[in-house]
């Protein structure tokens, strides 16, 4: 491995290079652009042998990736925000067609008001599109998700497209130290893509067909079953990954000091780093608090949440998302997990970081303090107009 000082975007591009996609369909949008720029440089300098196709829109970017996948090629694309929304129509085609495409999404706010900064309303609004959704905390995990993503998505029993999410700017544009694996390590981890679900002149078949009321439910049940298989495949993939790269990930969630925690904060993405530091600071003052980081939103980690929250007094969810007219969607999902497990504790929902608003250590300390005072309901973080 080589230690490098890279941004999240650059680290992800290194991961994609190591995964050797045969087709890259690219359409730039801030803050994703650096990923496709770096990949175009790698194709140009010969360090990545791939068809680099500069398409005319995000809708075309994913359509192109699907076309490539349908002839058995490993395909990559990337987008963000309005671009993701513009390709929304194609998301369900890719998942319903069971094409294991890897897509990197730079999490960015959605208009209006126009805003290029990070929040997670873009990807979370598409949770129901049938894709695996993973959220990286740092640039190292971003690089690793590129390799893990293909491995998981392409497993025959999964055969589902994979969206790797990186918080816009705070992760995509922040430089940090990253171990870049060697080509030999990457090849040892990730086998070439092989699938029967492809167009082949020797074995003619029809892909992407219609299914009326008679059979539609069966297709959707299989799609659901494919996503549910991800849990065990993630575990297997991460053990294999650890054996080769020496880094062990922890499945659909990461629990940090939750075992004896009275109060747990559930969150996702790059803000987890600050929550972890705040948990350590509060623990040093005798407060029994913990962090549960959701590494995946689909499949949703119902069991992991129930297990982490089994002995806690109260729990809050901090997310960069709001489903207008209800509450944060991550919160809705987490409360459902608790309910199904028969865990009846007070819960609160904190919506913050919208449009790139800073979330401070003080904000996080306040959430834990609120929880210890019996806080419930929905609360917005960062409503003051002060400069960050």
């Amino acid at each position, binding site marked *: 491995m080589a*230690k*490098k*000082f890279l941004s999240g975007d650059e680290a992800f591009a290194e991961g994609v290079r190591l995964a050797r996609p045969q087709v890259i369909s690219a359409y730039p949008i801030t803050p994703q652009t650096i990923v496709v720029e770096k990949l175009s440089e790698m194709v140009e300098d010969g360090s990545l042998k791939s068809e680099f196709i500069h398409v005319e829109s995000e809708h075309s970017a994913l359509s192109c990736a699907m076309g490539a996948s349908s002839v058995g090629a490993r395909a990559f694309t990337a987008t963000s925000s309005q671009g993701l929304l513009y390709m929304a129509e194609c998301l369900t085609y890719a998942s319903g067609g069971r094409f294991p495409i890897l897509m990197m999404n730079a999490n960015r706010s959605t208009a209006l008001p126009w805003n290029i*900064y990070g929040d997670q309303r873009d990807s979370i609004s598409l949770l129901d599109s049938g894709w695996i959704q993973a959220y990286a905390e*740092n640039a190292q995990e971003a690089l690793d998700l590129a390799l893990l993503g293909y491995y998981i998505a392409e497993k025959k029993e999964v055969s589902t497209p994979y969206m790797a999410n990186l918080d816009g*700017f*705070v*992760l995509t*544009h*922040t*430089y*940090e*130290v990253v171990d870049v694996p060697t080509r030999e390590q990457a090849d040892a981890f990730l086998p070439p893509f092989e699938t029967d679900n492809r167009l082949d002149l020797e074995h003619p078949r029809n892909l992407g067909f219609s299914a009326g009321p008679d059979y539609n439910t069966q297709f959707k049940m299989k799609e659901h079953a494919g996503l549910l298989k991800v849990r065990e495949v993630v575990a297997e993939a991460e053990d294999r990954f650890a054996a080769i790269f020496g880094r062990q990930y922890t499945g659909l969630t990461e629990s940090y000091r939750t075992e004896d925690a009275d109060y747990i904060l559930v969150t996702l993405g*790059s*803000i*987890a*780093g*600050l*929550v*972890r*530091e705040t948990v350590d600071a509060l623990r040093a003052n005798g407060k029994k608090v913990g962090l549960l980081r959701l590494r995946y939103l689909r499949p949703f980690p119902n069991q992991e949440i129930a297990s982490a929250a089994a002995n806690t007094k109260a729990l809050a969810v901090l997310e960069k998302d709001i489903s207008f007219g209800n509450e944060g969607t991550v919160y809705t999902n987490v409360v459902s997990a608790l309910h199904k497990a028969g865990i009846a504790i007070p819960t609160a929902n904190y919506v913050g970081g919208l449009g*790139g608003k*800073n*979330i*401070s*250590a003080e904000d996080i300390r306040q959430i834990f303090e609120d929880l210890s005072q019996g806080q419930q309901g929905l609360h917005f973080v960062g409503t003051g107009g002060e400069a*960050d």
Partner: protein
Amino acid sequence: MTEILWHGRGGQGAFTAARLLGAAYVAESDGFYALAFPSFGPERRGAPIRAFTKLSDSPVGDRSQVVRADYSIYLDDTLFTDAAFDELKENGKIILNTRRKVDDERVITLDGTAIAQEILHMPITNTIMLGAFAAVSGIVSAGAVEQAIQENMPEKLQIRNIAAVNAAIREVAG
């Protein structure tokens, strides 16, 4: 954790300096970590910008902007006002590119633009101020800065910028 706040104008390379510092620091030891990032937003030549470097011997989880710095570095003295002192931690220092003398023990000055004109033949002081930081703080070595330049700057810029760093280190030490 050591927090560094970089002030410059768009085009002066403040973020490049922030990034080179992070790269130099993590090259010093496997146990060193850093974050480097600019103030995010539309990039405009000449507009005031900030960049940030955080250095630590453990992973840095806080990705928010530096509010109070251990070192606040000005590539352009037109950005330096009395408000600069509000952004310093206790015992924090300011490193200022200027021809002026500033009568305050917290402020270290050097005429980086003169060094830049002489060595780089252009008024770009980012690597010079990085060299000044290395000399003032002792946190990164000249060798680590040199390595960071070799690994992160275009080849045609490397030799002159390494010379500029060393000139700044001599200037501050002298």
